[in-house]
Every structure is written in C-alpha cells, then in structure tokens.
C-alpha cells in the first residue's frame, strides 16, 4: 500500500512565515485551542471496533474454518502384497470463488474446493498414492514436502497435470512430522497465493523405531491418530495464509485457515484440562515471515515436527518463514476459564485478520 506523503516543503515554508506572530496570529492560536477536540485514546467503542464487519457463511463458501481445524483426510487404506498399508487419496484441483473475509470474494485455485486443501494425515512408513485430477483452468501440481523420487516431485516436467488430466504421486510417508503440500507450477507465487496448498501430517510409528525409550514411545503414540494416547489431545491444524486481493503483491487479508477473524468472532472451544496440539504451517506469500503468539501461556515447539522432543521449550512466540511448519503443544490446565487470544505477532497481520481466541472452559 503506497500512500501519498504530505509535502513537507510547504509546511516548512508556511511555518517559517507563520512564526511572525501578531494580533491575528495570537487570536488564531486561541481559537484553535478551544475548537480542536483531542480525541480520547481509548473510547469504550474502540476496543471491539477493530474487526471485519459481518460474517462469512460456511454453507455458501463450501468450507468452514472451524471444521478445517480437525477434519483430517485419512484417505482409503488397503494392504499390498508385501503386507504394507497403502493409503490412497483423491485430490481435485478446481477454480472457485471463495469468501476470504466477510463480503470479500477471491477467485481462488483450490484443492477439493477449499483453502487450505484437505489436511492429509498418514502414518510414517505407509505407501501413499495420491491421485491428482486437474479440473482447473491452469496446469497444476502437488509438490509434497516429504521424501520422494525426482519424478514424484510435483514440478513442471515431474507430475505437472494439464487441465483435464490426472497423475498419481507415489511415495512412502517419511519422515514423520508436520509437513505441507502445494502447487509448484510456475509462476510459483501466483499458484501458491491463489490457494493451492494444504497440510500433510505424517504421524510417527513407534514400531519403526525399536530403539525408543518408553517415554519417547508414549510421545509417539500420543501423536498417532486414533490411539487412546492421542484421544486426550485436542489437535488442530492451522495454516497461516494471506490473500492479495488487488494483485499488488501484498496481502490485503491475513488469516489462519483462510477466513479473516473466523476464530475471533467464534472462538475455538478448548477443554481446560486436556492438552492442546497445533499443527502450525506457514504458507503466507509475499511476506518473509509469519508467526504465532499465544496469550497468557507458553508452549513447546517442535520445528517441522520431525523430532519427538521439543526443539524450543517454554516460548510464547514462534517465527516461521514461508514453507516452515511445526508442532505447538501447550495446556491450559489449572487456568482461569475465559478467552485467550492468539495471533501473529506481526501486529500488521493480526490487524488484517490473523487473530483468534481460544474459549477455555473448565
């Protein structure tokens, strides 16, 4: 956003000539002193006023940021001749107009009609088959952050799919962690910021790590979807994104999971005494970094989620560059129930939509 700057030369010149004060000058300052109202810094109105106006209807938008938090796509499993689990997904790219802030429509390119795309959740070591159909108007790919061969990399010439075409990405799920996928067609910036990205979570499989100690095994189990150890965790995915609505290579709207202020207007309910795990992914285009800040509490952070022990302990702000992601773990056990804010600690992003609340209930 470029704003015209006030012409200082004029100010300077008139200020100099104006300093010769006489009768009229004196009455001028007197009149000004009485008439200019100094606004109150914090009127009761102002606190709740910094907010988008209106609500986005999830039904008409086709996806709900509140469901996106937890609607893991587990695909369809089968067992191959080697006895290994094969997990297959069907992803379709399509052009779709989505509402990214109340009343603001964005001509998005989507995976499965939603932004972010489905959160693919698999277990370490599984054989993955991702069938990718392109019903969009442009060539697209799915480039996974994971371990795979060059032909499966999802680049132009390696798994790029023309409109109407189909390609199946095949690779094994390694390493465990919190990852992502996104379109890698060119121009890259546009294919990403138009909405082609999603979470790709590989849960650790303790059976593949026989040398783990019991405590590490327990941690690994707690991260494995569907286990009793995992069930007590309140898990959610947050994809930090932004939207450049006027094509000036700067974002007008920031959010987690697309819809500005979605979790500010309708807080995320948290059971106070159960631990919280956030799969946090930054795919914000145009800005060098994004961040996550939790109010009134501290968390442990696993960068990329590829370790069972935290890479940072007891922090309340974490900074991620584009494509960087990690696992945030904390608990509100014993806390006073109420609303706890979380947001990017770039105030700019927070004020443009990337802000929300946890509603902690005892």
């Amino acid at each position, binding site marked *: *956003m*470029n*704003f*015209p700057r*006030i*012409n200082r030369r*004029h*100010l300077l*010149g*008139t*200020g100099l*000539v*104006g*300093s*010769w*004060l*006489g*009768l*009229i*000058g004196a*009455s*001028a300052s007197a*009149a*000004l002193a*009485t*008439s*200019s*109202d*100094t*606004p*109150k*810094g*914090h*009127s009761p*109105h*102002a606190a*709740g*006023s*910094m*907010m*988008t*106006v209106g609500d986005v209807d999830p039904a008409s938008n086709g996806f709900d940021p509140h469901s996106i938090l937890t609607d893991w796509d587990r695909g369809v499993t089968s067992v191959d001749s080697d006895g290994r689990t094969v997990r297959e997904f069907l992803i379709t790219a399509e052009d779709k107009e989505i509402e990214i*802030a*109340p*009343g*603001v*429509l*964005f001509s998005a390119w989507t995976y499965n009609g939603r932004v972010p795309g489905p959160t693919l959740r698999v277990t370490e070591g599984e054989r993955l088959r991702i069938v990718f159909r392109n019903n969009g108007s442009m060539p697209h790919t799915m480039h996974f952050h994971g371990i795979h061969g060059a032909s499966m990399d999802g680049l132009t010439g390696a798994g790029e799919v023309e409109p109407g075409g189909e390609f199946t990405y095949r690779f094994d799920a390694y390493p465990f962690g919190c990852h992502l996928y996104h379109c890698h067609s060119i121009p890259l910036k546009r294919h990403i910021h138009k909405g082609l990205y999603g979470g790709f979570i590989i849960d650790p499989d303790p059976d593949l790590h026989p040398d783990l100690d019991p405590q590490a095994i327990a941690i690994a189990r707690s991260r494995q979807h569907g286990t009793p150890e995992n069930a007590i965790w309140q898990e959610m995915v947050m994809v930090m994104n932004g*939207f450049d*609505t*006027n094509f*000036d290579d700067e974002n*007008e709207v920031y959010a987690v999971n697309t819809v*500005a*202020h979605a979790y500010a207007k309708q807080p995320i309910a948290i059971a106070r005494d159960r631990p919280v795990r956030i799969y946090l992914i930054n795919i914000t285009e145009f800005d060098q970094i994004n961040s996550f800040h939790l109010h009134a509490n501290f968390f442990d952070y696993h960068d990329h989620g590829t370790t069972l022990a935290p890479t940072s302990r007891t922090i309340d702000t974490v900074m991620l560059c584009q494509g960087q992601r990690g696992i945030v773990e904390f608990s509100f056990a014993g806390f006073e129930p109420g609303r706890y804010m979380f947001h990017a600690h770039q105030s*700019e992003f927070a*004020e*443009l*939509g990337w802000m929300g609340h946890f509603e902690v209930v005892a």
Partner: protein
Amino acid sequence: MRQILRIAGPFLMIVLVAIGFVQLDPLAVLRGNAPPVEKLTIELAQINQGELKLRLRAESSEAMSVAQVQVDGAYWKFEQTPPGPLSRLRTAWITMNYPWVQGESHHITVLTNTGATFDYAIDVAMSTPDPASSLGWFLGLIGLFVGMVPVTLGMLFFPALRAAGPGIMAFVLALTMGLLAYLFVDTLSEAQDLAEKSAETLSIRKVVWLVALVTAVGLFMIGRRLGAGSGNGRGPAMLACAIALGIGLHNFGEGLAIGGAFASGAVTLGSFLVIGFTLHNITEGIGIVAPLTDQRPDLLMLCGLSALAGLPAVLGLWVGVQAFSTHWAAIALAVGAGAILQVLIEVGLLIQRRYLDSAAPQPLSSLLVGGVLGLVLMYSTSLIVTV
C-alpha cells in the same frame, strides 16, 4: 401529422437501434467472464471526535459493494449510509469510530467485494471546524483581511487616480488588465486542481472550461444589453461592478484554498501569511475603481463594490475548512474565471476606445508596461502566499 412523423421518425429509429443492439448483444463475445474494472473516489473526509466519516462515489459501470474498510492497515468496523451496493455515480458515507490522533496522518483503504482497494490519506488529522464556533468568527476575520481589507485599501487610491492625467490613467487601466489576466489564469488553474480531485467520471475538467466560457459569453452579452460597453453614464459603473464580481469570485476561490489548506494542516495561518494576502489583493481595489475615474460614485456604491469583491473570501474560508465537494467548488471557480474573462475583454475594449482609437492616443509602451507590471505584481506577491 407528417411534421410529427418527421420529428418522431428519427427518435423511433434511435430506440429501435438501441433495442436491437441490446437484444442481439454483439459484444457478448468480447466480454468473457472478466469482471468490470471497479473505480471509486473518496471525495471528502470529515473528522469528528473519535470518528472518521468518508464520502465515497462509485464510478464503475456496474454497481459495486464496499465489503471492508481498513484504517491504518487494520480492519475496522464501519457503517455505510445508505447501505447496499453503489450504482454508478451514487454516493454513500462510511462512518467509523476511530481513535485518531491530532496532528498525525491516517490512511484509509476501502475494499470492495472483489478485493479491489481504494486508498485515502488524511495528511494531518484535526477536527473538521464548525463555522458556528469561535473558529468560525476567527476565520471570518481572516477572510476580511484577505478580501475586504485589501480591496478597500486599494480603492483608497481613487482620489489620486481621479487627479491623475490621462497618461497615468491609461497606465493604471493597463495594470488592471494585467491583474485580471493573472486572476483569470489563477482561478482557472485552481478550478482545474479541484477538478483533478473530483470523481473522474464526472469530467469536471471539461465542465470547468465550459462553465467558464458560458459565463464569460453570457455576462458579455448581458453587459452589452445593459450598456456596459457604451460610452454613456452607466457603462463605467457596470464595468466596475463586473470587475468587482469577477474579483469576488476569485477571492471566494482564494478563501477556499486557504480554508482547505488550514483544515488539512498544510498551512499555519500566521500573521505574515494574512498580511501577504492583503498585499497581494490590494491591486484588486485599484482595478475596481479604475473605470470610474471620470464618474462621481457615492460612498454607498464604493462600499458595495468593496463588499462584492471582498466578502466572498469570508464565505470561501468557511466552506474551505469544511469537508466540501471539490466538484462544486471547481464549478464555482469556473464561474469566477468566466466572469474575470468577461471583464478582461471589457477593460480591453475600454482601453482601445479611450487610449488607442481616440483623438489623443497614449503611447503603446506605457500600456504594455502597465499590463506586464500588473502580471508581475500579482505573481510576485503570490509567491509569499502559496498555500
């Protein structure tokens, strides 16, 4: 009957062609699914205690909707009156409770439903003054010093002018022409500056030229009918009135500019600035009475002329500090430019009649020097008061 058909025929054809074109829609192939380019002008901002108000004018070919408003890079709750989509050239106010800071800049971005953005900058925030307040009286005083006082001071040269010989008189009338030429250019360019800030679709720049021309031609014709150009007794008085009116409209523009600059914080109204304006406008008083030297105007008439030329500056200041519509102000100034153009012609004709075509012509050099001096005087004094 046949006559009616002759007139109605072309109109009927126009309607048929229009209906046919819309029905067949030959341009459909060009349209694709590209959305219409959106255009929105933020015409004015009003700053009240804890509140910002903006007037928007839609300029797209199709109706557009304001979806969100950012103030200083943050989404802010707002109310739109009247609500709903804005069709072409419609206006609406948006109001936000905002803790703006006295003397600092604030930036506003309006997002439409397509995500297009339109920016507006408040360079230096201060409350929009209320003319009914003490500030109103103070501004009135400034207006008097900018308009009335210099014109009246200039008119004090009247006895001296009467006593002067025809050589000096010719020189003074030529000086008046130079002054008027300056005022014409100044008023017109001020009108164009305001037109630039107006909604583009209204084409105010064109309107300014047209209004100025129509005013000049109209006043010229009225003046002829009333005898301004004739050598009889009423002529010079009419001409003086016309000059006073033109100068008055120019001074309205001057008041507008000072008021606007004051409200936006771009200028401090120091004494020197006001005295500068007084000096700048003294020549105007001389110009008004120049055609009257062979007359015996009474005091009432002189006061009337001075009020006609000077008081509009007060009005201009009052309007200028408000959030005013730039397009209406531009049109008012265009009327002023037209009025000045008319008196410029009339004074030219008077000089020709009295000093060039007459039995005792005055030297051309003195007329040329007078004219150029008028321009130089106005231009050089304007340098100290540019707002």
